[in-house]
């Protein structure tokens, strides 16, 4: 009944006034000073990636591909430590010296083998001379040659074995860093006995870190591998690249893990930090204007284009909303200047303060 009444009445009231509703919206004249006083700010319409920015909580983790451990290949005793926890080391920098009896034995054997080889060499050279003068028979020369070759082989084998342990400095084994990074763990003190079953140092490169985000299910569906994200934390921002999207949903938080690989050249990110991860999805370029630039006038969405001294109200067609922005199908063009704040005042100029907002 009321609807009927309303209809009948609307006809009565609006009967003679139809023209007003078809009128073009008029321009709004306004001086620059007025803009300033009312706090109306202008901005140039630009194309921006139209994807929604998904923002999620995240934690920084180490990149296992860039972690290094330092082990002693032989049993022994630590005689010297070159680095301590927290130090930055380059690849190949010495980190420790190890004394090992095994190594000492080996060196002794090597010395012996060397003497043996040199002796054999001398015999071989003399026999060679003698044989050429046909003083001795070939058999004897041949035997001494064999002897020498064997001694040389033994020596080289020992030398090779020694070299396999690494750099040798005197009787000590010099351990070098396998990669560049920070010494994040030190499990050894001077004089301690170590062996291949014991990690001495852990070295980690922070140049590239992994950022694990927890995206809610809906957002996770929009995220693809290879998308560019942004790690937001208190000291700044870093870009990152999504390289993994979790295959299961966390029971408690009902969120999906997202991994984003972030370059960390200045080392502002640190593993274990709680940060925010922003990922822009669906990044095709489109015209985006802030929601604050648009007013609802008699059921139409209207933006205000600055024409120098006046605003031209323009109806805009909105494709969708993205995170505080409208994606505009048509209405404003790139390069135009529009009001992005205080637009409620422009609406008032257009329709007065009594704009009712009802739709019928």
């Amino acid at each position: 009944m009321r609807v009927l009444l309303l209809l009948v009445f609307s006809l009565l009231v609006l009967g003679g006034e139809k023209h007003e509703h078809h009128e073009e919206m008029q321009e709004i004249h306004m001086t620059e000073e007025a803009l300033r006083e009312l706090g109306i700010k202008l901005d140039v319409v630009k194309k921006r990636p139209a994807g929604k920015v998904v923002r999620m909580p995240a934690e920084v983790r180490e990149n296992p591909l860039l972690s290094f451990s330092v082990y002693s290949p032989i049993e022994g005793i630590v005689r010297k430590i070159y680095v301590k926890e927290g130090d930055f080391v380059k690849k190949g920098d010495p980190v420790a010296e190890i004394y090992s009896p095994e190594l000492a034995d080996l060196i002794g054997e090597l010395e012996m083998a060397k003497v043996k080889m040199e002796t054999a060499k001398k015999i071989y050279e003399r026999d060679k001379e003698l044989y050429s003068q046909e003083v001795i028979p070939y058999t004897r020369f041949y035997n001494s040659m064999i002897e020498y070759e064997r001694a040389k082989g033994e020596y080289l084998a020992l030398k090779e074995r020694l070299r396999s342990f690494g750099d040798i400095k005197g009787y000590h084994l010099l351990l070098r860093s396998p990669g560049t990074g920070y010494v994040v763990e030190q499990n050894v003190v001077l004089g301690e006995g170590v062996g291949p079953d014991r990690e001495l140092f852990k070295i980690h490169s922070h140049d590239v870190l992994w950022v694990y985000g927890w995206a809610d299910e809906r957002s996770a569906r929009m995220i693809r591998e290879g998308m560019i994200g942004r790690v937001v934390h208190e000291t700044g921002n870093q870009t990152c690249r999504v390289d993994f999207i979790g295959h299961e949903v966390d029971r408690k938080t009902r969120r999906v893990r997202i991994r984003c690989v972030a370059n960390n050249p200045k080392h502002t990110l640190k593993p274990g930090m709680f940060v925010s991860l922003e990922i822009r999805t669906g990044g095709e370029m489109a015209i985006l204007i802030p929601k604050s630039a648009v007013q609802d006038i008699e059921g139409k969405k209207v933006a205000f284009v600055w024409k120098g001294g006046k605003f031209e109200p323009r109806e805009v067609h909105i494709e969708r909303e993205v995170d505080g922005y409208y994606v505009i199908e048509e209405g404003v063009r790139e390069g135009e200047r529009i009001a992005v704040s205080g637009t409620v005042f422009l609406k008032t100029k257009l329709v007065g303060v009594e704009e009712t907002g009802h739709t019928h």
Partner: protein
Amino acid sequence: MFRLVLKFRLLVLIALVGVVVYGVYSFRKLPIDAFPDPTPVQVNVYTEAPGLSAEEVETLITIPIESVVNGLKDVELVRSVSLPGLSYVSVFFKDGTDVYFARRLVMEKLPDARERIPEGFNPVMGPNSTGLGNALLYVLHDTSGKYTNEELKSVIQQWMVRPLIMSVGGVEEIVQFGPEIAYLVVPDPNKMIAYGITLEDLIEALRKNNVLVGGGFFQSAEGDLVVRGLGRVYSIEDILRIPVKVDEEKGVSVYVGDVARVVRGEVPNRRGAFTMDGREVQGNVVVKRIYENTKEVVDKVKKKLKEIQEILPEGVKIEHLYDQAYLTEKAVATIQKALFSGMLLVAIVTAILLGNLRASLIVISSLPITLLTAFIVMKNTGMSGNLMTLGGLAIGIGMFVDSSVVIVENIYRHLSERRGAFKFSVILDSIKEVWRPVFFAVLIIVIVFSPIFVFESIEGKYFKPLALTLIIALISSMLIAFTFIPVLTYYFLKPGKTTYSKVMQVIHRVYGRVLDLSFKLRVPIIATVVVAFFFSLFLLTRIGTEFAPELEEGSVIVKVFLDPNVSLEEAKRVATAIEKEALKFPEVVRTFSTVGRAEKGEVVDINYIETWIILKPQSEWRSFKTREEFNQILRERFAWLPASIGFTQPIKMRIDELLSGVRADIAIKIFGQDPQLLNQIAEKVKEITEKVPGAVDVQKEIQAGRLQLRVYPKWETLERFGITAEEVLNVIKYSLGGAEIGVLQRDTYLFPIILSLPEEFRGNVERLKEIPIFERDGKILTFGDVADIRVEPGLFVIRRENNIRYALVMCNVEGRDIGSFVKELQERIQREIKLPKGYFITYGGQFENQQRAMKRLSVAVPVSIFLIFVLLYLNFNSVRDALVVMLNVPFAVIGGIVALYISGFNLSVPSAIGFIAIFGIATLNGVVLVSYIRYLLEEGYDISEAVRKAAILRIRPILITAITTFIGLIPLLVIRDIGSEVQKPLATVVVGGILTSTLLTLIILPAVYEMVYKRFPERVEVPSVERA
């Protein structure tokens, strides 16, 4: 009696000194006010409902309150306004109800209302003040840069200034604008998710870890110890250290500091601000208690402000901006000026006409004595000296000498004629001769003013005091003429050489010739007068109507409505822009604005701004001559502003609001049920109103279009996880509604702790949905999980009167009288709008009072004229003579109307009172003349001779009374100062009326009397009044 007076003349003289002394004392002690306060008996009930929309406020709060107060005894009207976050119900009681009784009645019913209102909302009664209670405005501002507005408000105003001003007698309340200190806990939703913390956890932790308990006493070896449980937080660090939850995985506690920042900021969701000269300050309105004298309260508060300045920290200034006493002082000074210059003029005229210095001095001395006597009566009956009461005295100044003039004149004449006679008996005889006509004259004036006492409402509160003081003073003047004056004449008056002065002799000669002429041209003259009378009646139809002329208050208020969705920051910008523009005029002393409302303030939201523009005195205006012109200039200058703008004045605005609930000249209310339909009709009404000539500042109150953030609980989810809607709304209350979670104690001050979401979440609905609020069954649920959050337009304000909703269109009228404007408007609206059944339109504003007053007068005035006739008849015992005297009524009407027409004033209540006054004064002229003619006839004179002689002999008293009354009003007409506006139409009518009625009495009445006497001979045996 007169014999006794003369016999104990020394005693009388001593009494005179006593009266003078007491009179002066009374005058100095007389409470001074600008206006009689027209506020009806009214009790307001406010209910703060943070977070509720207008619709909910109406349904949940306003209607329950209305329903309990509706049935109260003597309730005449219940008005209500429901705004987002505030319900306001105003209960109007019958005039004359004791306001404390009314408050009790409402108080008794409030518990009933409380039961029907959801928990947590507490209806409270508004300050016991009046519509004109906003007596004084002051601001606190900091010049050193050390104090923020928050500190000024929460520390200095709240704890230092307020208690001191509240202690001033008569101060009921201080309405305080400005931000308040709060400790804001700003959670980081991302960190919350990371730590697995929900808003519910956070709220719980903050609430439960901030308590203070008393532990009684504890006996120990150290003695009897008081046990105190000190679980209260005292600093930001304390809050940060509050544990929220134990993280079971990691086995560590998560503290508030891990998931939130704590900052000192302001209480969110503020609904108002106070700006001055372009920046925000901490502003306050001192509200006076009902029945208190404004000026006294203001003076005391002003003194207090000076004292407070001394104790304020360095750099903090307390500044007084505006008070109503300013107007009072101006207005009363104006009226006093009129009073004294009137006295002076009357004195001069009397001296000239009497031609005897001593006689004149005696007559004039009666004036101050009369006024002093009136002050004594006023003081002892509790009346205050204000525009109306003092105005009454100013208007009557010429009449108050009449009694004395008649008596002194008669004594003087007798003394001069009966030289050498015993002074005592001469004086006694002279008084006996005239005391009855004097008494009779006063009686007539009293009766003639009686219709004013049938006024009610504002017109009654305004004009009854005027009539009352006038009557009091008139009666005093008569008593003085009967007591002190004879004694004074006995001591000081000496017989003159001649009875008549030179001036009088000239007048007599000229008058004699005029009389001859009038007898000769009797018929044409009478015909002319008749035509003139009808012509004047015709003129009357061309004169507009209004309630009363606007008082010039010396300041302008710009009322600004903005779109209902503006932010406080945006509104402040507009206020600033207006202030700056106004300050460009050299006539502007200062500007300041109130944006929205303070705690217990107005029923408005932040889209409403009142900018005050305080002007220099009118004499210093250069850029514009009148306030209307100034308004017009401003109207054009502000045209660019995105706002709907209206103009008014501080006190006028309040009075308009009292009358119609609206701060404009005219309020058009469209009653009905469906808000949308109401809105449409209102729109149409607005369009029509704009087309009516004279309409300015047409505004339709915004009722809808307020964007709302609506939270619809997702019932399925709630059900599954066993969450109640209350739990959801509870979280909303704390996280969005800004409800206080606890308090932080700093020294002895307590400051609220409030949860405040970070800006990026508050401003973005999508983000809001991501905030974790509950943990149930090991799952974290976000806002978006448990509720749909949408932004939709809703209602902005819902007004109701006697339980019916209404929409409002308001406008001011300029360049035209309100009466005819309203008539045209009503006709047009009736013609052009067909209302659905159950819908109706009413019109409110001062014109209502005008119409009601006129309606009352249209009955009361004829009655009083009839009463005069009866009195005349009793006096003369002759219908014929009574009728002839009554002829003066139309004579006076001619002059009154013509004067009104020429001056351009409208037919207002004051001008109507002017007509009433001249009816009386004019009749008296006739009485004086006719009585004497009858006396001469009895003496045996022939009719023609009697008429002539009487006219010649009586011209002096007639002229003196007429001219004194006339001249006494001249200052009121000439003065342009604040406060003279109201009395001007009255004075105009009286001056015009006296002019014609006196001239016609002197010229035509003798001729008419002679004619009538011959045509309707009547033998009357009863002796007439005047015997001698």
